[in-house]
């Protein structure tokens, strides 16, 4: 068996692929964060809770209404996205001119409240959610066994990320959005409803989180703390990629998934810290992040 750095290359390929899969979650979540930060200038600490809500809504749809995975993948982001719209209109909109810190505190508080409610209702052990039958099983790639569902996760996340990127960078709607980020007053003067744009953007960012939550439900246990565990890493990803950079957050998400995957082979104990080490290094060299522009 050929070896690379003392590790059989088969194992290495397997780990690279797994890294890519985990990177998919990082990418979708950090994309949502980046969009929200870009337009609203708010660090959405409730993102993890909204990811968790996505998974829970999928579970509830199955449990109480018999609605399966595929419809949940559509419905859960819409439902959670609407709660996002409500939160934006009722609460965040009032903070538009306040310091960053207020938005951060508000969303952090919301995250704690949402997690607390779910914990009270459903306990902490989590709830079972099966893999959809169409995607059960897997195939042997020669170097590893790839469950079909994981392949789907990569495919779905990549498509979603690229589609989002395309809409924002290449369409008229995206142009409005980017313009509103640069100078909201001027854009409003051109007759574009900026507050509506802002509300919908927040709703969309939240929907992205919920989508990732539904994707995660069959893999991780659906429990109230699932977002809290994930969100810290995702924040690191956003910081490394550059706050507010769309493409940066996607690329960094996938890349860091791979770096983390490799660490799990060479020095597993460090796999939960490696991303933060990279974050520190990046901040030392490029304080605005890899893809960010210095203010």
């Amino acid at each position, binding site marked *: 068996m050929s070896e690379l750095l003392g590790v059989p290359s088969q194992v290495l390929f397997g780990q690279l692929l797994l*890294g890519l899969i985990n990177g998919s979650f990082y990418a979708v979540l950090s994309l949502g964060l980046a969009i929200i930060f870009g337009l609203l200038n708010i660090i959405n600490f409730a993102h993890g809770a909204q990811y968790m809500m996505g998974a829970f809504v999928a579970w509830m749809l199955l449990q109480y209404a018999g609605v399966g995975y595929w419809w949940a993948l559509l419905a859960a982001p819409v439902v959670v996205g609407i709660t996002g719209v409500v939160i934006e209109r009722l609460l965040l909109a009032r903070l538009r001119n306040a310091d960053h810190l207020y938005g951060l505190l508000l969303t952090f508080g919301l995250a704690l409240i949402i997690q607390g409610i779910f914990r009270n209702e459903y306990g902490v052990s989590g709830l079972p959610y099966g893999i959809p039958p169409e995607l059960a099983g897997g195939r042997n790639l020669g170097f590893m066994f790839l469950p079909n569902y994981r392949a789907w996760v990569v495919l779905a996340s990549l498509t979603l990320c690229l589609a989002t990127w395309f809409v924002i960078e290449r369409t008229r709607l995206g142009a409005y959005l980017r313009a509103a980020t640069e100078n909201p007053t001027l854009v409003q003067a051109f007759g574009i409803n900026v507050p509506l744009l802002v509300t919908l953007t927040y709703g969309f960012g939240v929907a992205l989180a919920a989508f990732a939550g539904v994707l995660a439900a069959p893999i991780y246990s659906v429990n109230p703390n699932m977002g809290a565990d994930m969100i810290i890493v995702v924040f690191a990803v956003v910081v490394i990629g550059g706050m507010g950079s769309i493409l940066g957050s996607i690329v960094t998400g996938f890349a860091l998934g791979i770096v983390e995957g490799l660490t799990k082979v060479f020095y597993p104990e460090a796999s939960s810290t490696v991303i933060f080490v990279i974050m520190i290094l990046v901040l030392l060299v490029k304080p605005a992040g890899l893809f960010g522009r210095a203010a």
Partner: protein
Amino acid sequence: MGIRTWLLATTFAIGAMGAAEAQVAVKLGVLNDRSGVYADLSGEGSVVAAQLAVEDFKAKEKGIDVSIISADHQNKPDIGSNIARQWYDRDGVDVILDVPTSSVALAVSQITREKNKILINSGAGATDLTGKQCSPNTIHWTYDTYALGYGTGTALVKRGGDTWFFLTADYAFGHALERDTAEVVKKAGGKVLGQVRHPFPGSDFSSFLLQAQASQAKVIGLANAGGDTINAIKQASEFGIVAGGQTLAGLLVFLSDVHALGLEAAQGLVLTEAFYWDQNDGTRAWSERFAARHGGSKPTMVHAGVYAGTLHYLKAVEALKSKDTKAVLEWMRANPSEDPLFGKGEIRVDGRHVHDMYLFEVKKPSESKGPWDYYNQLSVIPAAEAFRPLDAGGCELVKKS
């Protein structure tokens, strides 16, 4: 009548009643995780279990006035220690119950000894509680890492699982569980092929599972707990590890974990527990009452241990007509325990409560009649061999006697 007068009047009335009927007033404190990873297997359920014990014992009629308080230690030793000190010093707590999370349990055990009170532990797993850090004031009721490793380890080697690979949570508890189980495996003639230490808590285990798969060990031992175990088992089923012929050994799996996993993912898992609700009429009847008060959830072995420990304590207080710490502890050690959940048992000089343990296998979805019908019993591990031998733990109390 103002609220203040009313309160005063009631207090006097209760005081007068107490003087007439109760000669001894005891205060029990249930200290456990009420919001984190262990909240379902201990948490409010342990309070319910303690209340049931007080009611079943008819404490009031026997002249014992029991009050129960509870608090959340958040799995943090500093928080747990502060609460324990406050309870003993200011709130007049006589006994602390439950205390899952070994690091917190060891700290509370130390404080209990200083204050000369009693700790009846049900939720924690570390064998150190009755080993190097044993205390005359600490009783360890339900299980420990040795009993779990011994039960599951021996059984699986006997069934042909003679090569092992460990997936270990990278902290004291995980290391202890791995060490204890590895010893048992080797003693039974098995071989340990390797291990991987994963960060605690983790969420994605696919990478580690792939390494375990590549080791070609027959058994993959999961030396972790709670959410980590749940995620590892769920993902192992996804990666076709069980289908590929490797067996998963959950070294610390509670009924609540199996409930969270669902039978589809958990089926075939072999595990050791001290109690299962569907063992006999006694356990079924009690569990029914427990579920009625606890949102329909069946009790875990930790809940059962809190119940049985409380019952045994109350018996001591009744027999002695006093709550004197030293006398109660002596009585509890000198007299065998008996209750509907654990049957007969006894407390050794090192504080270890010994009773039969059971080896279970998780049912296939087709075998289960509904929610909470999860285990098939494979064998009984007799009390005499289920726990670490008295002289092997390094407890100073043993050497003296």
